């Protein structure tokens, strides 16, 4: 621990505090605002998926439900590996922490690869681009933003993994780093839970993904 942070921490008992670390509180606050962020995107999609357009196809007509189910499963399981990493670190098991971190990053990358595949499929095979109709625009922007979040998460996981080999591992105050990345990661996962159900399963027209 550095001199400065130690110094500041001495003042701690002079504060009325929630007892939640600053950075963690900040992360929770930020995540709660992300609901509004993704909410707007989902709203936007739901609006346009309820309309009809001259230009087709719409996403709902061309979903590949089996494929998306698998990638949703992958993302869901990455939450498990993430929480196992967190658990391993709390037990002080550096090796296991690293393994689970890497596993999480891998699962995240698989999910992203799936999304890249899905996009390419939609664009080249099905002929649906962002410019096709508003529903398609909404679909790409929504899942694109989610994908960006996943990608940022993967980068953070990999940086944690990198850090874990340096400077005495992830222990001590770096524990908080892992916890924060974990919170973010799970959040991205729960958003996908909503997207998978509301955006894919509920709007897909019968026959899609047949």
């Amino acid at each position, binding site marked *: 621990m*550095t*001199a*400065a942070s130690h110094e500041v921490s001495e003042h701690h008992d002079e504060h009325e505090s929630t007892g939640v670390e600053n950075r963690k509180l900040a992360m929770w606050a930020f995540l709660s605002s992300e609901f509004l962020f993704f909410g707007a995107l989902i709203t936007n999609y739901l609006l346009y998926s309820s*309309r009809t357009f001259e230009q087709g196809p719409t996403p709902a007509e061309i979903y590949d439900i089996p494929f998306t189910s698998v990638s949703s499963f992958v993302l869901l399981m990455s939450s498990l590996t993430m929480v196992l990493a967190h658990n391993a670190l709390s037990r002080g098991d550096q090796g296991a922490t690293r393994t689970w971190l890497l596993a999480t990053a891998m699962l995240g990358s698989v999910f992203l690869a799936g999304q890249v595949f899905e996009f390419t499929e939609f664009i080249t095979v099905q002929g649906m681009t962002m410019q096709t109709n508003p529903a398609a625009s909404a679909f790409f922007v929504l899942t694109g933003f989610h994908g960006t979040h996943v990608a940022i998460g993967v980068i953070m996981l990999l940086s944690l993994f990198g850090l874990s080999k340096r400077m005495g591992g992830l222990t001590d105050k770096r524990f908080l780093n892992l916890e924060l990345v974990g919170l973010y990661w799970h959040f991205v996962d729960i958003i996908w839970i909503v997207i998978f159900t509301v955006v894919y399963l509920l709007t897909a027209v019968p026959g899609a993904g047949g």
Partner: protein
Amino acid sequence: MTTTTARTTTIFRRPRSETGFWSWITTVDHKKIGIMYGYTAFIFFVIGGVEALLLRIHLASAESTFLTAADYNGLFTTHAVTMIFLVVMPMSAAFMNYLLPLMIGARDVAFPRLNALSYWVFLFGGIFLYSGLIFSSVVPPLGVTPGVTGNLDPSDARSFFGLPDGGWFMYQPNAGPAFSPGRALDFAVLGLQILGIASLLSSVNFIVTFFNLRAKGMRLLRVPVFIWMTLVVAFLLLFSLPIIAIALFMVIFDRQFGTLFFDATAGGDPILWQHLFWLFGHPEVYILILPAMGIVSEIIPVFSRKPLFGYAAVVFAGAGIAFLGFGVWAHHMFASGISTVAQVGFGLTTVAIAIPTGVKIFNWMATLWLGRIRLATPMLFALGFLTMFTIGGLSGVTHAVVPSDWQQHDTYYIVAHFHYVLFGGSILGIFGGLYYWFPKFSGRMLDERLGKIHFWLWMLGFNMTFAPMHWLGLQGMIRRTWRYDPSLEFWNRIVSVGAFIIALGLLVFMWNFYRSKRRGPLAGMDPWDARTLEWSIPNPTPVFNFAEVPVVHGLDEFWHQKYGEDKDGRPVRKDDADSTLTRLQEIGTNPPNPVHLPSPSYFPILMAAGLPLIAYGIIFHLSLFGKALIVVGALLSLAALIGWGSEPLEEAHMEPAHA
């Protein structure tokens, strides 16, 4: 305690200077950041004000040709965007930054470097927005097939500068790619996006600061009202900015990447934009007023020598306004054809907001009542706020009567409403705060006589400017109009004269500020006989704020250090009050123990600098140059982030394990 700083790798040597140019660039001190916010916002106030003056010169006659239609449209857009996002919000942020730690007895905010980042992002966002004047062009929408000459270059259709001309709420599809080609609006949209990032960062920072850094004993109901309002505003920002972020993303995607969100010909829905914009926009207006209400809640008790009447009610009313404020957005859309149920529902929620607002107004009045009122300049502004804001609020209620709004909507009656709340409310409140806390950051007093001249010039000019607008609006003068009916000329002239009286008042203020900052009388420690903690330390505030972090025993802690009460409940100055002050002054100037402060850093400004580069890149993304800009900007921010991460985390208030 060991010194291990040297062990950590950093890219740069840590900046060390405490004064001079670099100390401002690298500062993480909330006070310096607050002051920078203040000056920047003030410069923008003059810019936004001059834009308003140009509008008013044009509107002084009905068939004026002072401005072209395009310039007129551009100027009212930049005027509003400037005043709202580059004046009132950052001015409020200036007070929050400066005062939040001081009023809760803390050394700094929770994340000082993040705080610096907010400021730089704001500054670069503002500069980016205005750089559109140079880098963009407004072309009139193409109305002719090639070969038919004529309207590509009509004298009135082209703006001299590249001013964005969609109005501050940029209704779609008019502000979309088809009807507002050219780059001007992209600058506005991306500029707002950047400004939003700045505010979001500060809001998280302030929330954490509020919850975790209050001095020992400062329980929730001992927190000064201004700080409460800071928290409420932070929450409003936290929950409303993501909405506008998405809405702006959609517009920029429409404009740059060919999506069809608001393209009605392809099935896009223009009403969606209105919902998203006002879902943000209405909370935004409370973001603009609540800090001013907080300021007034600090000033009135001090100058009435009475505690704030119904403190808890005032706090809860503030929170209530904010909460209700999320449920009224469609009152801006009463005329846009929303369903009957929606009109009724939103009409009802809108009138409901008058109730908590009324609670605040009446509690302020009750604080005045039976007080011992000193009409010093800050108090004059606070009373100005109280009376002028009420006018604006009441006209707001007349809009909430839905059918009336169908007549009033989009007329100067609305323009009158929102200037009464924005100028008569936010701006008067903010200037009250400037007069009140000027000694705090400068150590000197502003001149009272000039202050009073300023105040009365503004009361005269302000009412001359905005009161006739009610009448003009009811007479059918629509807003955003470049021409109007000659029968309305008389009152428009009065309005225009009023605007110049406001400008004159501001010049008086500027002179007062300039002179007093150098030669004003020294303020001493507690010039107003105030009640809150920030006055328990010397003026100007020492870098470390509190030499000894205070312990709080009640609301108005500082007052109770000076005053007891007799059996009637009247304040009696304690015998040791003077010696308490002397002691506070003494330790404040010569701290008994060494104080460690977060060190300055280069990384916030570097990281912020990446954002406008990315934004330029998006605007010019079709060219190689643009793509390169995106990459360079992203790399710059990323590199700064890595540097940031590898710098020691002085600002993290790590809790010890036994917390």
